[in-house]
């Protein structure tokens, strides 16, 4: 291509246009690859972190919200939430034989039973962390409940809810440092139960919690113990 004045001005002009248009496009692209942050949610109390934190042995990802009944909620959109059971819950129950999840279209209410986990022919209810309409159910987890144990915060999610009152619902949930303090209190209570059972070298002494904690501690009454922790026994909070 010849280097006459018009050609040079045309190419230089194109370079400038490209450089100038890159800047606003970059801003738009930056927003595109930055998912809605939990920090921008009106009720978030702690800045979210990419890093997962551990409250003792049990995983508590910092970006999730936790219900005292050991269900978690992840905000996926302005009114969309994914729900699952937390690491403590799956360790407490141990092997899961069957999951009973609400059907798509069903209404769930925060703090009311919404699902049940079945193990050794006994079912234990769990509470919904949010209110709304179920829009999706993890059929893979229903078909293979072991998924929940392998990945309670990932592939083991349970159902998705369209929650019009999400902001109000999130105010009743815990995340960040509050969730960690709550899990510390729960594990302290669990340690107390270990001590009473005189099991020898256990979690409270620096041992590692076993899978199926409730069965190890309460034997045939394990489901009653699980209900106490999941707040579905109608009695005191655990």
């Amino acid at each position: 291509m010849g280097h006459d004045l018009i050609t040079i001005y045309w190419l230089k002009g194109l370079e400038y246009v490209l450089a100038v248009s890159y800047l606003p496009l970059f801003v738009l692209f930056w927003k595109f690859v930055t998912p809605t942050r939990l920090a921008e949610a009106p009720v978030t109390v702690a800045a979210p972190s990419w890093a997962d934190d551990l409250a003792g042995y049990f995983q508590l990802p910092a970006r999730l919200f936790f219900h005292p009944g050991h269900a978690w909620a992840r905000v996926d959109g302005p009114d969309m939430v994914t729900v699952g059971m937390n690491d403590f819950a799956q360790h407490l129950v141990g092997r899961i034989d069957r999951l009973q999840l609400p059907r798509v279209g069903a209404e769930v209410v925060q703090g009311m039973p919404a699902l049940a986990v079945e193990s050794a022919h006994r079912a234990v209810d769990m509470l919904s962390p949010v209110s709304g309409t179920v829009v999706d159910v993890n059929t893979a987890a229903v078909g293979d409940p072991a998924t929940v144990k392998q990945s309670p915060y990932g592939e083991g999610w349970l159902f998705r809810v369209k929650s019009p009152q999400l902001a109000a619902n999130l105010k009743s949930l815990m995340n960040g440092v509050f969730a960690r303090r709550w899990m510390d209190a729960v594990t302290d209570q669990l340690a107390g139960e270990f001590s009473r059972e005189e099991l020898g070298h256990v979690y409270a002494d620096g041992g590692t919690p076993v899978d199926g904690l409730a069965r190890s501690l309460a034997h045939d009454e394990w489901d009653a113990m699980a209900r106490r922790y999941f707040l579905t026994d109608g009695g005191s909070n655990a």
Partner: protein
Amino acid sequence: MTDTTLDRRFDARAWMTDKFFLGMPLGAYLRSLLTPGNALVALILVPGIPAVIYRFVYGIGAVSNLTQANPWGIWIGLDVMSGVALAAGGFTLASAVYIFGLKEYHPVVRPAVLTGFLGYLFVVIGLTADLGRPWKLPVPMVYSYGTGSVMFEVGWCVALYLMVLALEFSPAAFEWLGLKKAREWAIRLTLGLTILGLCLSTLHQSSLGALFLMMPHRVHPLWYSGFVPVFFFVSAIAAGLTMVIVESALSHRAFVSRVDPHSHEKLDTLTLGLARAAAIVLFAYFFLKLQGLVDGGRFDLLNTPYGYWFLFEVLGFILAPSLLFGVAVRRSNATLARWVAGWTVLGIVVNRLNLSVIAFNWNAPERYVPSFLEILISATIITIGVMTFRWIVNRMPVLRDDPAYPQAH
């Protein structure tokens, strides 16, 4: 030797069994090697190693299709150019964690540094296969500098950076050997080494691109640009990030027993964070490539077979993965991010091959096609690299903390 073993008699056999044979008797260890994967490795190495020896005994002309007109083949394009770019994860991740304070990426730094170290080590081996006469390697290092040559800068940079990577990875080796004092000293060097590594990588990643500035007549005008050094550096960052995604995904599948059981959840989060960074870098790289195209002003060549291939590279291997990474991040889909990362790694290799082989000497009457022995020797070098990675990960604390050094990395 640790303090606790000082009062005991050193049992060399037990030490060998523990450190080298994964705690198994020699017979059991050898039997454990009889796997389908190792059979495939043997299939490559049994003819490959004699081919390497043959090349050094009879010279490059005996095994390759390289000529005076086409002096660069796949050993340069794949083993060196692509190898250096894909080994960039070491400096990218180490800088992110130790300089920019993104501590949450700590769990992937050590595998990234190991990948970088082995990547560079086998780049040097691949380059030696191309250059020949390995006993001459110290010449530019010791008494005949040749400071006017870009290759001098690249050679020195790569040699120094290889040493930096070895030192950066040394804490893992010291933990494996139980050398606590040496490990403490190595850990103290981390920040200094990271800064040095960032400087050296910036220099030689771009210098590899600068090599092409000396031969504008040999490179196709669509690929040639005054920005090539910048293209090389920016694309190396994308290559490093995506290579860490691919390597960590494969490691978590291949080394299940070596991975912290709680790290799978964390890996998805880290993968999406790396994918976001890769999306942004690729987006910037795409615009730089457009700027290079406009600067060259050869739009007429776009409507030719080389032009279609150029557009496929720019749109298919740069813009598309950038957008798809964005989709993966928005949907929190780590699986999609991993597939896109694999595609991007392929794209970086294609770009380096385009510059050094495919669009190189594009208008010369004589075209280069690699010989079977060139491909075999290249496959042999890459296979030995992968085997070395496996050997180290199976023994040293790379994918999880050593119980004796909690929170070590």
